[in-house]
């Protein structure tokens, strides 16, 4: 693997996902592809030469020169307000990648698969589910996804479609802050009981990927180990004040 050089991508499309979250569809010349779960580094340069770099997870399955980043706007952030506020179709953006070789899954790695997401932590997991669907994989998969409210759920309709395909994927939502009338899903933070109800038994030896804020990831990974899951089969990615994405 050679040096990861900076490339100039073009914003082909900007898709609103939620009030605070957008997906940037990027056209990246000479993109060599990526594995679901990997991220890219984005670099912004101001007129005066000031630069800021951050990492963002790729939300799309590998597909030619197109790369989709889903970005949550953090009001006190420096890069995300630009990406999810200022950037327009036709603008150009410097990035390099793909980066990261551990928090990745492809259908060939098998399963069963347990994906646990908090907030925008769903982004790299979505790349895995999209790749699973795109390849016609029947690897049994379960997604447990925690959001504050229904309106904060990223990719909600697409997740419904994927779960309705009947190809072995189930999706369970936990809404921690507010629930719509008649809500049949979970109405609390992810806990051990929920992981037992939604997840696989340790004897089924699932591959587990957990991504979200540090507090969620710490809690979920701790519960899974306490329930008897092999720590070596639990992969985590966190974002706190900084980090990925």
């Amino acid at each position, binding site marked *: 693997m050679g040096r990861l050089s900076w490339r100039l991508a073009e914003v082909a499309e900007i898709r609103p996902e939620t009030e605070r979250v957008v997906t940037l569809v990027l056209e990246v010349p000479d993109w060599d592809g990526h594995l679901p779960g990997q991220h890219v580094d984005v670099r912004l340069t101001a007129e005066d030469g000031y630069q800021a770099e951050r990492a963002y997870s790729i939300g799309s399955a590998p597909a030619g020169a197109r790369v989709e980043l889903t970005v949550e706007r953090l009001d006190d952030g420096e890069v995300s307000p630009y990406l999810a506020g200022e950037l327009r179709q036709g603008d150009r953006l410097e990035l390099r990648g793909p980066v990261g070789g551990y928090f990745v899954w492809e259908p060939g790695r098998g399963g069963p698969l347990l994906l646990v997401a908090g907030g925008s932590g769903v982004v790299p997991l979505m790349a895995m589910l999209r790749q699973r669907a795109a390849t016609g994989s029947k690897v049994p998969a379960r997604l447990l996804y925690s959001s504050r409210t229904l309106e904060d759920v990223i990719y909600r309709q697409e997740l419904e479609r994927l779960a309705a395909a009947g190809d072995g994927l189930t999706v369970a939502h936990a809404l921690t802050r507010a629930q719509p009338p008649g809500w049949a899903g979970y109405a609390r933070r992810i806990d051990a009981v929920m992981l037992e109800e939604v997840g696989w038994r340790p004897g089924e030896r699932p591959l587990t990927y957990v991504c979200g804020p540090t507090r969620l990831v710490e809690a979920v990974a701790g519960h899974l180990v306490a329930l008897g899951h092999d*720590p070596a089969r639990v992969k985590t990615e966190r974002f706190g004040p900084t980090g990925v994405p």
Partner: protein
Amino acid sequence: MGGFVSRGFRRRRRPEQAGEATRLPPGQYTEPGFPVLTAGPTPRVDLADWRLKVEGLVKTPREWTWEEVHALPGSTFDGDIHCVTRWSKLGTSFAGVSVDTLLEAAEPLPEASHVVAFCYGGYTTNLPLEDVRGGKAWVVWDHEGRPLPPEHGGPARLLVPHLYFWKSAKWLNGLRLLDHDIPGFWESLGYHNRGDPWREERYWGD
């Protein structure tokens, strides 16, 4: 790719205060908090079972219990740490023991040239022996006056502050001295073999 400007982008962070800017390696920004980044569940290590080992190409392989390692001469670090995900934490402190003290006890053989730090939970990272000698590396169990929390590597982690922080292995179990280099966990997955933040050695080929 010189000359590219991101249309409409302006700095939003407050400028670094006097003295901070020269302490920030290229591509880094200051972070007042202490973010957690790890690849898997946080191992829980019972202090009664905890051991610190120095083994491999040494005259006397050594192993310390929690009590024994605390009986060694203590050493502290006050300074800055730099994570490859671009945050730097300036003016922080850790306390523990200097790696020099551990190596003196074990006596490296002349052919020892590299170190693999190995950890509870299976993590490894590799370093040239020179990067952990001469007052440049510690094994630490206190952070800013309090016991190092498990999510930050407690009971004890390696501290090599002049390199990116993934080299400062959490949940340290020991150091193995070798006469050759073996890439560790992140070093096998695309991250730079040495990781000098001042040379911005983030990924392979940087």
